[in-house]
């Protein structure tokens, strides 16, 4: 049962990909959520596949750079390296990617996707062989969040014959990458081992010269046993992985004036900030397929532990009103803020009125479950149906053990104030969820119709574990059914129109009161697609009609725990366009071209006040924060047998940092009312030379023009995009 059909992208894979050479492409489909390219071309919805060839072309380590060429993706940068990316689709908040479903090999990979959806763990994109983006009505197959979309990262498959790959690179700011894999299959048994290390000294600078970079390691092993017979494809696969990160990352940014003077400086008060995490995963997959059906069963367990020690704000032994870091970095010039600002920079010593409070947000997560997904082709009443259905029993948990310790700034260094470390948040949230979906697709001549429904049955449990607060708990149950329908009509062999509607949903976490409504929307899309072998164009209009928009405010947005805020009725609508073509020169060179454009409009339909710092005083008609109206990405290259060059130019409009559009003078104002991020133009260049079929050298420059833009002033002050980075690498494979 090989559904694979060559087309535009897959030919490109075979022409250009070194490391993917050894992959058995057909096996990718078993893990893929999209399927093959032909299905992609006639999909009744917005789906995008970035294959291994595309990924290797630019050697990106940051998922934000990878997704820059995907229409309908809105991103808020944070640390410049993409260590904790903020990704949204079609206007949903990009905050910690909490409203999209992030999957690895079809399994939810967020630390606790139901209980604490903020994605503080994100798999290393450098080891992925494909990235799949799904938006629109086909979303009902993936949950729990159906309002925006799903992002599936596909790891390297067990090769069908001996395969080895090596990739080493070094670059500016102490960057280095080491990546290796080896796999083989002997008779029915195959295996793969893979290791990846990534490191940088960081492009920001502390006065004391300390490292502001990161070290990440990732190890993966797979064993696969093929049980196929004449009539069935069948295999069992075990995947185990371990990853860790140590990064000197901070939430502390700069005042606008300091950003203008030197966007890469870091204040002395952030000198001890450090994130450490460990992640391990286990997955058992069984795949069975006959001539008219396939069935995939996945058993999974992910553990994640993290501790982020970082500046939370100021404290005072003398109490009183103390400005938040965001307030004092927004108005450092006021009499009240000046001394805090000087302490922050290390130019003035602390008194006990300006103690620096560093929090250690220690959290442990697990996520486990079993998912069964299947499809079946049947003929009923003379029509061909493809039925798909799935069920998932899932459980996840977050344990928060947050503490705070006071420090004093003395001679530019943070010294412990000698006070006891105090516990701040000590609680547990756990969710058990059963998800089911069923969908039917009927094809008749040029028309393909699909309809389906997803059910989410969520039991949440919250417990405050602070001694004396045993009665602070909640057991909460949410049930929801999410229908969706779509259609594709083939105008001719190369083009078609499609459209659909589905119910969007984002659950609330177990700690939120039952009176806080879940997020709900009705999402519409209508599109046109033209596909030829070397040319592809797509235009999609979308409209997300929220009856209730909610935002959970995590620490990255200025809250200690994930408090949920409600905005009610909101509209988000826009247009996504993409065009790709490959030209062929007489000398055999290829010229791949790509244009991606996204226009998004949003408006709150009601006027209200919210204590959520990103909203404040909202007037009906105000746009949703952190959503660029226009985003454009252009990519062009030259590809020959011995070399290739690719240039990507990405533009994004400035974005409002708050829904409130101007300050009112009230103490309840959103501190960043009226402020916008910078618009940005980013240019990335990559070039490679192939010594032979197995060996390649590559060179790349990220942010070629050395643009220095404010990508966000949250959580605490202005932060820059990634500095210009040069990189030289060598790859070998057989």
């Amino acid at each position: 049962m090989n559904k694979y059909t060559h087309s535009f992208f897959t030919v490109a894979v075979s022409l250009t990909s070194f490391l993917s050479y050894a992959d058995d492409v057909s096996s990718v489909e078993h893990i893929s959520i999209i399927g093959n390219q032909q299905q992609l071309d006639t999909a009744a919805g917005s789906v995008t596949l970035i294959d291994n060839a595309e990924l290797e072309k630019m050697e990106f380590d940051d998922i934000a750079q990878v997704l820059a060429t995907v229409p309908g993706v809105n991103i808020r940068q944070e640390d410049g390296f993409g260590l904790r990316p903020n990704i949204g689709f079609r206007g949903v908040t990009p905050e910690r990617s909490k409203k999209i479903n992030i999957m690895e090999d079809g399994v939810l990979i967020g630390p606790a996707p139901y209980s604490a959806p903020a994605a503080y763990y994100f798999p290393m994109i450098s080891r992925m062989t494909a990235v799949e983006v799904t938006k629109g009505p086909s979303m009902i197959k993936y949950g729990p969040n159906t309002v925006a979309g799903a992002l599936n990262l596909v790891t390297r498959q067990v090769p069908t014959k001996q395969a080895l790959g090596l990739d080493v690179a070094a670059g500016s700011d102490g960057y280095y990458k080491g990546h290796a894999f080896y796999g083989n299959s002997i008779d029915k048994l195959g295996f793969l081992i893979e290791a990846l290390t990534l490191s940088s000294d960081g492009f920001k600078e502390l006065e004391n010269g300390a490292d502001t970079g990161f070290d990440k390691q990732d190890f993966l092993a797979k064993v696969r046993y093929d049980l196929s017979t004449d009539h069935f494809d069948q295999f069992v696969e075990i995947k185990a992985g371990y990853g860790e990160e140590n990064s000197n990352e901070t939430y502390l940014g700069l005042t606008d004036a300091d950003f203008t003077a030197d966007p890469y400086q870091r204040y002395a008060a952030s000198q001890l900030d450090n994130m450490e995490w460990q992640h391990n995963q286990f997955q058992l997959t069984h795949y069975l397929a006959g001539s008219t059906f396939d069935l995939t069963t996945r058993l999974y367990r992910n553990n994640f532990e993290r501790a982020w020690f970082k500046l939370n704000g100021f404290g005072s032994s003398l109490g009183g009103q103390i400005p938040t870091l965001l307030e004092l970095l927004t108005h450092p010039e006021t009499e009240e803020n000046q001394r805090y600002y000087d302490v922050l920079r290390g130019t003035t010593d602390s008194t006990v009125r300006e103690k620096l409070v560093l929090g250690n947000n220690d959290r442990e997560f697990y996520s486990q479950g079993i998912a069964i997904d299947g499809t079946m082709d049947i003929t009923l009443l003379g029509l061909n149906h493809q039925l798909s259905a799935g069920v998932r029993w899932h459980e996840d948990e977050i344990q928060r053990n947050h503490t705070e310790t006071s420090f004093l700034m003395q001679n530019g260094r943070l010294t412990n104030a000698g006070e006891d470390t105090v516990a701040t948040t000590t609680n547990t949230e756990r969710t058990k969820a059963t998800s089911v979906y069923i969908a039917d697709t009927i094809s008749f001549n040029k028309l393909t119709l699909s309809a389906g429904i997803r059910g989410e049955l969520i039991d949440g449990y919250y417990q405050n574990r602070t001694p004396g607060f045993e009665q602070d708990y909640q057991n909460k149950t949410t049930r929801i059914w999410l229908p969706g329908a779509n259609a594709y009509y083939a105008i001719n062999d190369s083009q078609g129109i499609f459209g659909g509607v589905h119910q969007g949903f984002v659950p609330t976490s177990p700690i939120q009161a039952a009176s806080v409504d879940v997020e709900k929307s009705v999402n519409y899309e209508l599109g046109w697609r033209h596909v030829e072998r070397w040319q592809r164009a797509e235009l999609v209009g979308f409209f997300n009609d929220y009856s209730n928009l909610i935002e959970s405010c995590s620490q990255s947005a200025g809250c200690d725990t994930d408090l949920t805020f409600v905005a009610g009725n909101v509209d988000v609508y826009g247009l996504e366009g993409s065009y790709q073509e490959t030209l062929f020169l007489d000398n055999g060179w290829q010229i791949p071209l790509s244009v991606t454009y996204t226009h998004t409009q949003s408006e709150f339909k009601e006027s209200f006040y919210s204590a959520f710092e990103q909203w404040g005083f909202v007037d009906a008609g105000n746009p949703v924060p952190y959503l660029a109206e226009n985003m454009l990405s252009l990519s062009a290259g030259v590809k020959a047998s011995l070399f290739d060059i690719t240039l990507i130019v990405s533009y994004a409009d400035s974005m409002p940092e708050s829904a409130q559009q101007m300050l009112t003078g009230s103490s309840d104002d959103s501190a960043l009312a009226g402020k916008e991020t910078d618009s940005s133009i980013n240019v990335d260049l990559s070039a490679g030379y192939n010594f032979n079929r197995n060996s390649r050298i590559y060179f790349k420059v990220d942010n070629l023009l050395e643009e220095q833009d404010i990508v966000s002033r949250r959580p605490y002050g202005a932060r820059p995009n990634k500095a210009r980075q040069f990189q030289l690498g060598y790859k070998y494979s057989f």
Partner: protein
Amino acid sequence: MQQRIAMSLSAVSLAVALAGCGESTSSETGSQYGNPATTPIDNNFNESALIASVVDNVLIPTYQSFATQADALHLSVSNYCDALRSNSNPSSAQSDAQASWKSAMNEWQLAEVMQIGPLAENDFALRNRIYSWPNVSTCAVDQEVINSQADDYDIRTRTASRRGLDALEYSLFNTNLAHTCTVAGTEPENWDKLSDEQRKQARCDYAEIVAADLVDNANELLTEWSGETGYGSVLKDAGKPDSRFSTSLEAVNDISDAMFYVKEVTKDTKIATPVGIAANDCGTSPCPQNAESVYADHSLQNIIANLKALRTLFLGGDAANTGFDDFLTDVGDLDTAERLRADIDTAIAYAESLNGSFSTTLEDDPEQIEALHDDVKTVTDTMKTDFIESLSLELPATSAGDND
């Protein structure tokens, strides 16, 4: 054919219709979960009577008394300045002004535990104009002494740390006539060229402006609370239709929040920090410079006033009035009602038994201040547990999860 397509989709359509696209959420919560103030406890207690008692017997009389004291303070400062100008026994006039300041401060320290409504609005703007401690700056006051000599000077446009009782304390009690600005460029202009007499006069002239401003703010506070539209009526109407409080318990919770001043400020800031239980500018040793009212050495009296304010709030005035003690008794927690009242009395009695000023005791016998801390902590520990839980009140955010 269209008919067949429709029939084929009918199963899924039916499922969609049956499901009704519906959503339901339900929960079961523990007694400490969330915001119980929005769900009144089932009791027969008349919370409105408690609110009326606190407003009429405690809050408004305290603000009235402070306004009277502020007037007296203004007058005595004016007399002091006149005495300086005419050189007619200025030290006696200064002593009178200092005594007036202490009387006003004693009254204000009661009001400190009553920061509700107009005092708390806009980030406590009115409270800070009257008394901004611990956000104080003596250098800012030094600058203001000179700035205030300009013809177009308007103190109403100046920051809180240059105004109020804290600025007056520095002006009236500080015997050092040098300025306190240490950062280059911040020194008050021409200060060093003034004689001692000119400096005294300049400080007193500014103190007179501050005292007049204090009177204005004290009267504004009283106006905000008085009359049919005043905040006193707003509190008393809690739970009625069109009230800003959906339940009377929400208003009770506002009063309770204010009472936690004794935990967060009196216990932690006024006692724990200077004695060294919390880090201070001397490390973790006794540190008089981190006490409140350091120029007047009035911290102990302030602490006593805070505790007395807690007592009157708790009782709704005195034992005959409807107060939190009655509320606790009504919900069946007589033990907490009696214990809390006794513990407050114990703390007041111990504080009043201390001989000498706060700074002297801190330096000579810090164990006594630590014992005072323990007494106050006994009170606040009961407040944040039994008191809150029995009355289904919500802890102020600043007191939640601090693992006291």
